[in-house]
């Protein structure tokens, strides 16, 4: 491939095609390292916490949480929006950046997409288990039934959520799998034992690497990218409508769809950065995930963080301007009420902290980026907490005003979803190529 001299190479270290294959297949073909085991076991412990707390919730009732007559959604929906938000970067990177022909995406899109899928798994737990009767969750699907003329309510944003998220999950899954096929075939071809040959062969779906296959592959990838692109916008738009279509001051705002989408991309990139910085360090992929990549992503963080910050300020100004006392109070209460600490945490993490990325040093120093990425993750969790809990806990009638603090069960479920997420991620890192070998090979210049 031709590479202009003025461009920084996207993969450094003078890697050849064979190096790429060797480097990326190594974790799959070798025994897991000690650090993998350590991480995996910790993740499993947290997964166990998830199973235990969810079992307890279903066994005893939602009463094991601290949600109450006024704040009926607490950590559950906060976590849901948090995870769905994280699930945005993957598709954005693989679909939108693909359409914009941003080649730097190639070494990170696989893991970003995997992250998306695992994050959506985690997200799906919350709307399911926040139901009083989770065993009847299928009633939210428009299934023909024998209960009489029972049907779902198409007016309800929760139903839109069901469609939005299931669509997003299925498209993301297909897109991700499609991208994996050539690489799985590579692993299959290199396989030295029967089991590996069989399973990778099975999932490679008879990939033969012919020009025809490649041609179809690229067309399908482009089509899926086209389908996914609106989904990136639609999913969080619809999630935001859970709030925007309600009557609660602090929820009932038209700014929510763009603001939520920007926030989702912001948090998604925050999480991608966190994960890649770990993977890069642990798996020695510094030559594939270069500082160049990190810098590109920090720029996205800076942009979306600023959009989100602008939205915070806009919301506040509009509330003040509205002349509507409930709205005004809701925002004054965010800033100065009993949950002000959460609001200012959010403001610091999302609006102020990313502004350091105006500095080149900050954008190119991995350990520093890592810290900021964690801050962004924390900030985005607090954003959802602020929106959900501070709006609900003091709404129209002061007689119902109340405080809400999570119980250990709610905290346990949240921590547990990290267990699920990382368990999936560790398994992914062990069994599938974390970098798209086929695509990366198109952006390196093999001297041979």
């Amino acid at each position, binding site marked *: 491939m031709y590479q202009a001299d003025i461009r920084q190479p996207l993969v450094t270290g003078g890697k050849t095609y064979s190096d790429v294959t060797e480097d990326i297949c190594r974790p799959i073909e070798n025994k897991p390292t000690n650090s993998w085991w350590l991480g995996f076991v910790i993740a499993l412990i947290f997964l166990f916490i998830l199973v235990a707390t969810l079992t307890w919730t279903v066994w*005893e009732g939602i009463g094991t949480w601290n949600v109450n*007559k*006024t704040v*009926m959604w607490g950590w559950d929906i906060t976590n849901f929006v948090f995870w769905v938000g994280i699930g945005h970067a993957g598709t954005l990177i693989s679909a939108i950046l693909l359409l914009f022909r941003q080649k730097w995406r190639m070494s990170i899109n696989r893991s970003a997409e995997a992250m998306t899928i695992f994050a959506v798994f985690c997200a799906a737990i919350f709307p399911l288990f926040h139901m009083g*009767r989770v065993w009847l969750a299928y009633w939210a699907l428009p299934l023909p039934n024998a209960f009489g003329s029972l049907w779902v309510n198409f007016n309800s944003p929760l139903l839109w959520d069901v469609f939005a998220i299931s669509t997003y999950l299925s498209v993301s899954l297909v897109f991700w799998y499609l991208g994996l096929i050539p690489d799985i075939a590579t692993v299959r071809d290199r396989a030295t034992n029967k089991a590996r040959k069989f399973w990778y062969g099975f999932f490679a779906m008879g990939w033969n690497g012919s020009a025809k296959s490649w041609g179809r592959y690229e067309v399908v990838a482009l089509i899926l990218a086209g389908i996914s692109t609106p989904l990136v916008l639609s999913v969080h738009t619809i999630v935001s409508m859970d709030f925007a279509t309600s009557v609660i001051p602090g929820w009932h705002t038209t700014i929510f769809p763009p603001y939520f989408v920007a926030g989702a991309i912001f948090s998604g990139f925050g999480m991608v950065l966190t994960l890649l910085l770990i993977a890069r360090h642990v798996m020695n992929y510094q030559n594939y995930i270069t500082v160049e990549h990190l810098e590109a992503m920090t720029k996205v963080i800076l942009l979306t963080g600023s959009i989100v910050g602008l939205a915070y300020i806009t919301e506040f100004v509009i509330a003040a301007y509205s002349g509507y006392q409930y709205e005004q109070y809701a925002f004054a209460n965010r800033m100065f009420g009993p949950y002000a600490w959460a609001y200012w945490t959010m403001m610091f993490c999302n609006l102020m902290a990313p502004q350091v990325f105006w500095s080149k040093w900050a954008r190119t120093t991995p350990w520093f980026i890592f810290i900021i990425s964690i801050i962004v993750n924390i900030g985005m969790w607090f954003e959802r907490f602020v929106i959900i809990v501070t709006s609900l806990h003091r709404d*129209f009638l*002061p*007689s119902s005003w109340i*405080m809400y603090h999570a119980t250990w069960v709610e905290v346990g479920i949240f921590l547990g979803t990290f267990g699920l997420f990382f368990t999936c991620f560790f398994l992914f890192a062990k069994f599938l190529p974390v970098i798209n070998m086929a695509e990366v090979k198109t952006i390196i210049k093999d001297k041979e």
Partner: protein
Amino acid sequence: MKSSNKYWKGIEELEQTPEFVKSNTNEFSEGLPLEKVFSNNDDSVRANRRDFLKYFGFSIGAVTLAACNKTSVKKAVPYAVKPENVTAGIPLYYASSSVSNNEGFPMLVKVREGRPIKFEPNKEASFYGGGLDGLAHSAILSLYDINRNTGPLVNGGETDWKTLDKEVIKALKSTASNGKSIAIVKGDSTSLVSDKAIEDFKTKFTNTDIISYNTISYSGISRANEKSFGKAIIPSYDFSKAEVIVSFGADFLGTWISPMKFHSDYGKNRVPKDGKMNKHYQFEALMSLTGSNADIRVPMTMGNAGKHLEALYSALNGTKGGLELAGNSIQQAAEDLLAAKGKSLVVCGSNNENDQMLVNSINMMLGNYGLTIDVDNHYMGQTADEKDFQKFLADAESGKYGAAIFLDSNPGYSHPKAIETIANIPTVISTAIAMDETATSAKFVATALHPLESWDIKQPYKGRYVFSQPTISPVFNGRHIASTLLAWTGVDVADKDNLSHAYNLTKEVFEAEVGGDFNASLEKGFVDNVVSTSVPAFSGDINPSLNAISSTQVGETELVLYQKVGVRDGAYGNTPWVHEMPDPVSKVTWDNYLSISMPDAKANGWENGDLIKVTAGSYSIDSIPVLIQPGQAKGTFGIALGFGRVLPETVKNDLKDLGENAYPLVSYKDGSAGYVIANPTFEKVGEGYEFGITQTHYSIEGRDIVREASINAYNEDNAAGNHVHKPAAISLWSSHDYSKGHHWGMAIDLNSCTGCSACIVSCSIENNVPVVGKDEIRRGREMHWLRIDRYYSFEASEAKDLSLGLVHGGDQTIAEGDYMSQEKVIDAYTDSVESTDYYQNVKVVHQPMLCQHCDNAPCETVCPVLATTHSTEGLNQMTYNRCIGTKYCGNNCPYKVRRFNWFKTNNNDKFDYHFNNDLGKMVINPDVTVRSRGVMEKCSFCVQRIQYAKLEAKKENRKLGKDEFTTACAQTCPSNAIVFGDLNDPNSEISKLYKDDRAYHVLEELAVKPSIKYLSKIRNKNETTNQNAH
């Protein structure tokens, strides 16, 4: 078969061979190979036909036996012979009388399939109002209390009546031979049947002393009346005729004497008619329910009540004397009283005889006797004088009594000396229906019948009789108190001709005392044989009382022992509903506490939830949590009586060890019970106690939720305070069409609503709302479908300029006397003034809040499964079976009236109340689903009542009549503040109220179009300053 068959099965048939003909007569032409099967030679089964039958028989037997194991058999047994009048699904109503608080009070008992399930007011008994309070409603659960005694007990062990009677008679007879006496300590009920039995008992056992005992004493009033008019009585008060009411610490709407009657009387003049409504002054120490409704409320220390009464007395006389209160309010009250002579009422909650003497002379001066006060048809309940019981205690200590019978009384709980004293009496007998403090130390428990199982005639007022009839067969092996007493005199109390002894006795008493048609009277529930009232001659001398008052040393601080609206004296304190019902003012459930004023809290450095050791007189309570109560007078501390019951071991729920018993703090100086104790001492012993409180934010934040105006503004413009300009609401939805059929609506008058919370309990019982207990309420999870919001507004004591910053609306100028209702303003004001004394002056408003049944209901659009929908009659309906519990509806409800079932509340040991045992479940209303966990619930406008009334009308082929039925809350409201009905009926009460100038929707700017209108509150007060406008 000789037939014309043209076909044959085989050649044999065609030929009709003899073998074929023979075999064809057999059922199985070839015979069964039984012989072969059962007698084979291969050792497998050696059996012949007999063996087969044996095996067969054994197998059947074995299977039958196996089938006999204990799989639970659930029976739905139809009536083999249908009892007269009982039709499954159709309720029966019996006129009876209240079973709580020693009050005779007519009411109806709703009975379904032989089970009493609810009390409803007897609307015909207009003298008594026509409402029922929370305690009266709750008392039904005492019938289904699993801790009831199942029969007579001797030394705590079960026995039969024969044995008990034998032993008791022996013990009673031995008293005379030992030269000892028998004491009958009777509760202060006004039962004529028991009185008759006691009389007969005394004829037989002449060595009997009869002692009346009342938990709460009103002897101050009766003693004063004895001095004034020669009659030791509590008069009958008529608040409905009083245009000016002045109360010195009498919580007559909540707890004083007979609040159910006072409530409805008070309510009659509370809504302005022809520009007039009653004017209510309340001078009080604690913030009572009554005080929260007063037009002018001034904090006063109870110890000074006499001196303030003297000031009123002097002001009425035109002289100077006594102690004036803030803002010359006593002078003001005197002026108003003088202008309403004969149409006013002055009452005082003090149990001090001298204070009451002053009250009598004031009322005399005002000419209220014979008009608002009736001493002829006087009150008969709660007239016991504690000096009798004090004498009993002294006598018992000296060994006078060989036996004591506690009839429907429990001094073991409410008198600190009772338990140790009765230990001196050899034979102690109690008639408790469930083990109480006295029964526990009694040798014999002659378990009585529950009032709902008994016949009785009560005389709550002289000449006014109310009747009780059994509405259920005795649940356990109890016996009517009167029968028990008479059985001990040797009377045969067995049933005669299927009629119980108690019935015959009741009839006998009826004929002797009341007269008339027994059955008709029973059906009606009450009989009034009153005489016309006269003006008594005041024969008392006021001067000794005035001297006594002026020489009284009043303490720096005082401890006021009061009753809570729900629990009252604690007699029925073991029914969970009264505890779950929030206190109308503090909104605390399931607790009593040390109620203190903000200045005292600041001075002592205490905060809500600090634990305090309280010492007053010789007794101390080791640890009681503090609650800061706005409106409470500085220097006064309050503790509610009625808590700290010692219940049987089997009680494991929140009722166990509930609160602190404050009765031992009552002082018995000079032979009279004192509920105000001077100079208590306090010591902080801990902190961090968490109350189960249903409303934690106290101010209304200046929001347009409650509208109010002063009477003069109202008289100028009936819509005063209701002119709020809201932007025209544009709806995306097409509105519902209610042109056909019914359209249900409700109106709630904030003027007549006193916040008494009876509706909450009535609603809970009608709709099977579960009891969740203190811990769940701490988590903000009470299940009440109807709540009463209480908001305070603080009166500024001095002018201040507050700088609140941009987000709080910039600078605000507060003038003296302005009312502040925003948290930030109150906080800023608190920071800027030196003392918090202004916390004593608050304006209170109560607002019932329930599902508003919005036409454009925000809850309906967001439910993903259509579990909440709109009916064609304007109801917002909840389909429990369809609900999957996303709780989005609850979040999106602007009124926050939806309640979620966080847990399973039935058959769950975590909620060990009546839903957790078979007996308690008898009270469940069969017309209303008991909700499972994980579903949302809320007010249904009593849809089961709507449906029932519609079906009845349909069966009778007629249109549903005007206001033919109503919801449980509206029905029970003692002041008729809640009106429910059909908006499509132009003549209905609701249609008229909807057009009232005071009517408005709460949060109407949201365009949710609620089906409930509130009528703005009018205060009978010349407002000099307005609330800070918005």
